[in-house]
């Protein structure tokens, strides 16, 4: 379900990671001298999301870019491209990704799965016409989802804070090095621009269903995205064995034990228990938060500008 949309984000990351670093760097520098004063809401900081103000603005910025740029192009792609071709394109990039899946199988010592994934890659690349047809699926070899962030988690690296990256979407402190490695290990990174453009189109087109669902179901799309992203990642990391039981225990604990202190953390904390503690143990530097807030403001302003541009264009048309 969500997996596709977030996989899509991952793939976008592959492509744009390099520029993002530069963008963030510049913004942080530029906004260093900008006036501050982000309205402080009296909201308890979520330990998993200490940069919520920054993240929310970034989320809004990404949404604007998506609705004015990515979505129109993706809709056009979906409209002109026959379904079988879209499936072929999806299979092709998915197959390339399996190089990285195999590497991470090995890094996580999942050797049996690594063998099967190697077979999958070989079968689809040969009989599957370079990956256009998912032959392995009909043999019963399911696509596995492994990446370097999962490997880092298996190695014991803590998740760190939740971050929404410009253009790239939801991630975590651990997810950034993860994506960099995945980008480097994906053959699609080393081909020309047109292929990468198709890859991005494919990612966005595949995320359509999930994004529509969020739009329909979420009362607070930012929180909805954050929670489902973190839970989804957690589920991948633990290969579906995430602590469903703990979840219930914690939620019930809040009810049974009338202890406001223990109940103050949101459900996400109970879900990501380990990581939350780690975050809490390293108090966030106030200056860092401020810088993030300032950067987020500039994104907010950019957002407003895009909206203005849009409305101007509308007026012109009229």
């Amino acid at each position, binding site marked *: 379900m969500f997996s596709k949309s977030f996989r899509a984000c991952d793939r976008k990351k592959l492509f744009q990671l390099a520029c993002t670093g530069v963008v963030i760097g510049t913004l942080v520098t530029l906004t260093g001298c900008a006036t501050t004063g982000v309205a402080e809401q009296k909201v308890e900081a979520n330990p998993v999301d200490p940069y919520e103000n920054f993240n929310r603005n970034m989320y809004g910025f990404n949404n604007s870019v998506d609705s004015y740029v990515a979505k129109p192009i993706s809709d056009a792609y979906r409209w002109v491209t026959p379904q079988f071709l879209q499936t072929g394109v999806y299979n092709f990039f998915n197959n390339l990704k399996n190089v990285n899946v195999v590497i991470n199988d090995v890094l996580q010592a999942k050797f049996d799965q690594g063998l099967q994934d190697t077979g999958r890659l070989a079968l689809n690349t040969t009989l599957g016409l370079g990956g256009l047809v998912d032959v392995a699926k009909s043999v019963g070899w399911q696509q596995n989802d492994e990446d370097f962030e999962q490997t880092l988690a298996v190695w014991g690296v803590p998740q760190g804070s939740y971050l929404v990256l410009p253009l790239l979407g939801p991630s975590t402190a651990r997810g950034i090095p993860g994506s960099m490695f995945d980008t480097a290990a994906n053959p699609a990174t080393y081909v020309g621009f047109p292929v990468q453009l198709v890859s991005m189109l494919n990612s966005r087109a595949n995320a359509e269903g999930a994004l529509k669902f969020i739009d329909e*179901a979420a009362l607070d799309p930012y929180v909805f995205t954050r929670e489902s992203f973190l839970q989804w990642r957690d589920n991948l990391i633990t290969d579906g064995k995430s602590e469903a039981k703990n979840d219930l225990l914690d939620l019930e604990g809040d009810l049974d034990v009338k202890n406001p202190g223990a109940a103050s953390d949101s459900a996400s904390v109970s879900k990501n228990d380990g990581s939350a503690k780690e975050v809490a143990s390293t108090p966030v530097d106030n200056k860092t938060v401020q810088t993030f807030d300032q950067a987020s403001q500039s994104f907010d302003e950019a957002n407003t500008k895009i909206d203005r541009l849009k409305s101007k264009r509308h007026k012109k048309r009229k």
Partner: protein
Amino acid sequence: MLKAIRFTMIFAAFFLAAPLTAQAETAETAKQVVEKFQAELIDVMKQGKQLGYAGRYAKIKEAVINSHDLNKIARIVVGKEGEKLTVEQQNKLDEVFSNLSIASYAHNFKDYSGESFVFDAEEETTRGGVVVHSHLVIPDDKPVKFDYMLKENGSSWRIINIIANGVSDLALKRSEYTTILQREGFDSLINKINEKIDNYSKQ
């Protein structure tokens, strides 16, 4: 894919329904409660087109009320923020939450293309709850894992959470509801819920 997404979320959407008391009928086991609910859901999907939105809503309402502990869910979803609500506000929330849950099922489970639920396992939790593990088989797509958490209410078992492919509906909702209550307040929460119900009924 879209279907898988829908299924997952929809399940989740339900819980918060109104405080209609869960009446103890003949004592069913946790597994029976879940399987009965799943069967009713599949049934609604099969008749989805003929029933239309209103028909699905009416049919699914019964099924949800008879299988979920909506009171408890509504309390969990607002978490600590619930302590700040007046009795009237809590009642209002129960009411709209229940409508939202049923509406989202009615909106999302509208057609049938060969899906079926398969029971996997049942286990007891340390606090006297039961988790029923199952999955939904979708033709030509990856199966979706559904874990139901049940607690005993009086003498009957009631669903209080559904975890679809590792995403806990209750945890997701709780984060959303408490955040909105903290940032925007009670009225905004109710308005947002009503807006969603409206959208569901239109599509």
